[in-house]
C-alpha cells in the first residue's frame, strides 16, 4: 500500500506513535488503522521500535547521577511534571539500582506522611474549612493528598467528606438543565470516531478492569522477547506500553513484592499465570489466573507468590 509506505518513510507513523502529529493527521492515521490491519501492524512495529530506542537510551544514562540529582525525591513527593515522571520511571525500569533507590525514597516519605496524617486531630480537620475547599476543588495537591489519606484513617473525616460530596451532588442534580439535543449526538459521534475495531485494543493498551481477561493482553505479551526475562531474579518488569497516563508492565515474579503504599498512583493487576496473594492490613486476597485486583490508593499492601512457577501478571500504574 503506497500511502502506508509514504507514512512510514516520512516518519508520520513514528510521530503518530509518539503522539506528535497534529489532530487532523492523527485522526487520519487513526481512521486508517481502524480499517486496515496493515496499518495497525506498522504502528505496532513503530511502537516496538520506539520502546526499544527509549530503553537503549535509558541504559546509556548514568543511574548514579540520577540518584544523586535529587530528582528521585522530587518524584517521590509528586513534584515532577509528566515528562519528568516518565523519565524517572523509565530509568527505574532500565536500571535496578534506580528502582531500589526510588522505593527507599518513597517508603521513607510515605511513612513520614502517614505518621503526619495520623497525628492530626480529625475533629479539628472537620471543623476547619479545608474539607469544603477540597470538595470545591480549591485546595492544593498536598492538601488534597492529606485529606484523602485522612479519610482512610479517620471514619469521621470520611463521613464528613461523604456528606459534603452528597450536598455537591444534590445541588448539581437539583440544578439540572437539559442540554440541547444536538449535544448528545455530538458526544455519540465522538465515541463512534474513537471506537476500536475488534482487535483494535492491540493499538491502544486497554485499561484493566474486573472484566479483563488474559487473552486481551496476549497480543502484547506475545511480543515480549524471551531473553528479556532473566531467570533467577525475583522481579522482572517489562514495559509494554506507556500511554494515556498509564504505564503497563508485564511482570514475572518469583517471590513477591515488598510492602508498599501508593500515594500518587493507582495500581491494578491481572494474573496471567501462577498464583499469589495480596496481603492488606487485615486481609489476605488470593489470586489465580484471570483474577483482577485493584490496589486502592493509600492502602499498604504486599504481594506473595504462592505457585511453584513464577507468577506472571499485567500490572498497570496510573497517575490519578
Amino acid at each position, binding site marked *: 500500500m503506497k500511502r502506508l509506505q509514504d507514512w512510514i518513510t516520512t516518519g508520520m507513523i513514528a510521530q503518530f506513535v509518539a503522539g506528535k502529529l497534529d489532530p487532523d493527521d492523527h485522526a487520519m492515521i487513526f481512521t486508517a488503522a481502524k480499517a486496515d490491519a496493515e496499518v495497525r501492524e506498522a504502528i505496532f512495529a513503530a511502537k516496538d521500535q520506539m520502546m526499544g530506542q527509549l530503553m537503549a537510551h535509558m541504559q546509556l544514562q548514568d543511574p548514579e547521577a540520577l540518584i544523586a540529582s535529587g530528582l528521585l525525591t522530587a518524584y517521590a513527593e509528586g513534584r515532577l511534571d509528566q515528562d519528568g515522571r516518565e523519565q524517572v520511571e523509565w530509568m527505574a525500569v532500565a536500571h535496578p539500582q534506580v528502582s531500589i533507590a526510588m522505593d527507599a525514597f518513597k517508603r521513607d516519605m510515605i511513612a513520614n506522611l502517614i505518621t503526619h496524617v495520623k497525628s492530626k486531630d480529625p475533629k479539628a480537620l472537620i471543623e476547619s474549612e479545608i474539607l469544603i475547599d477540597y470538595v470545591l476543588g480549591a485546595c492544593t495537591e498536598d492538601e488534597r493528598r492529606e485529606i484523602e489519606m485522612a479519610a482512610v484513617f479517620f471514619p469521621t473525616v470520611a463521613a464528613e467528606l461523604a*456528606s459534603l460530596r*452528597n450536598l455537591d451532588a444534590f445541588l448539581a442534580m437539583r440544578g439540572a438543565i437539559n442540554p440541547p439535543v444536538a449535544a448528545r449526538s455530538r458526544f455519540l459521534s465522538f465515541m463512534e470516531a474513537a471506537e476500536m475495531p475488534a482487535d483494535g485494543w492491540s493499538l491502544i493498551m486497554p485499561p484493566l478492569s474486573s472484566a479483563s481477561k488474559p487473552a486481551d493482553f496476549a497480543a502484547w505479551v506475545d511480543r515480549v522477547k524471551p531473553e528479556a526475562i532473566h531467570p533467577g531474579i525475583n522481579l522482572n518488569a517489562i514495559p509494554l506500553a506507556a500511554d494515556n497516563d498509564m504505564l503497563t508492565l508485564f511482570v514475572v515474579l518469583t517471590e513477591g513484592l515488598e510492602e508498599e503504599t501508593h500515594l500518587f498512583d493507582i495500581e491494578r493487576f491481572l494474573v496471567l499465570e501462577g498464583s499469589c496473594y495480596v496481603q492488606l492490613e487485615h486481609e489476605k486476597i488470593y489470586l489465580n489466573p484471570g483474577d483482577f485486583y485493584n490496589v486502592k490508593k493509600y492502602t499498604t499492601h504486599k504481594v506473595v507468590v504462592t505457585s511453584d512457577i513464577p507468577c506472571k501478571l499485567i500490572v498497570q500504574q496510573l497517575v490519578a
Partner: protein
Amino acid sequence: MIQRHSYTGSHLPAALLQQVGDMNARFSREIAIFVLDPFWSENQQLERVMSQGSQAELIDQLLQRDRKAFERLYDDYSPAIYGLVLKVLRDEALAEDALQDAFVRIWQKIHTYDESKGRLFTWMLNVARNIAIDKLRANTSRKAELTTSLQPSIEARGPSTTMQIDHIGIREIVDGLSPDQKMVIELIYFQGYTQAEVSEEFGIPLGTVKSRVRLAMNYLRDKIE
C-alpha cells in the same frame, strides 16, 4: 428533605412499558414512571447518585469503553453537568462546549477514577467544574463583565433572578440562608469563584467568607439529610 418514593414496577400499566420499545426493562420502567410522575425520575436519580450501592459494574463497562454504558451515563448525568457548567459560564454555546469536553474527558480518563475521589458522579462533577472554570478564566473579559455585573444584581434582585439557584426544590431550601450566605454559595458553587477570590473581589475578609460558606453548607446539609 428529599422525597422518597416507594414505587414498585409491578404497578405500571403495561401499555406504558410498551411505548418505550427496545429499551431494556430497567430503563423502560424508569422512563414510564417519569411519564406518570415528573419528579419521580429526578428523585430516583438522586437516590441512585447518593446511595452507597454498587457502581462497580457500571465502572467496569465504562472501562471497557462500552458505548451503551457511556450513553446511559450521558443520559443520566448530562443535565446535572450541563446545569453546573451553564451556571459557571452563563453562555449556552460555551456551556455546550464544556459539556462535550467534560464527557470526552470522562471517556478518556475513566481509568484514572478511583474511590478515594468519592463516587463516580462526584468525580464527574469535578471534571466538569474544572473544565468550566478553565474556560471562564480563559475568557478574562467575560470574567470582568461578570464581576462588575454581579454585585448590584445580587443586592438588588434577591433570590429570584434567572439562572441563579432557583430550580425546583433548591429555591425553597436556599431561601432559608441569609443574604450573605446566599451570595457566597452563589459565587462559589455556581460561578467558579474560590473563597480567596470572593474575599479579594468583594473586599470581605477571607475568614468571614469561609465562615459564611461553612454556615451555609451546614444549613443546606441539615435541610437535605
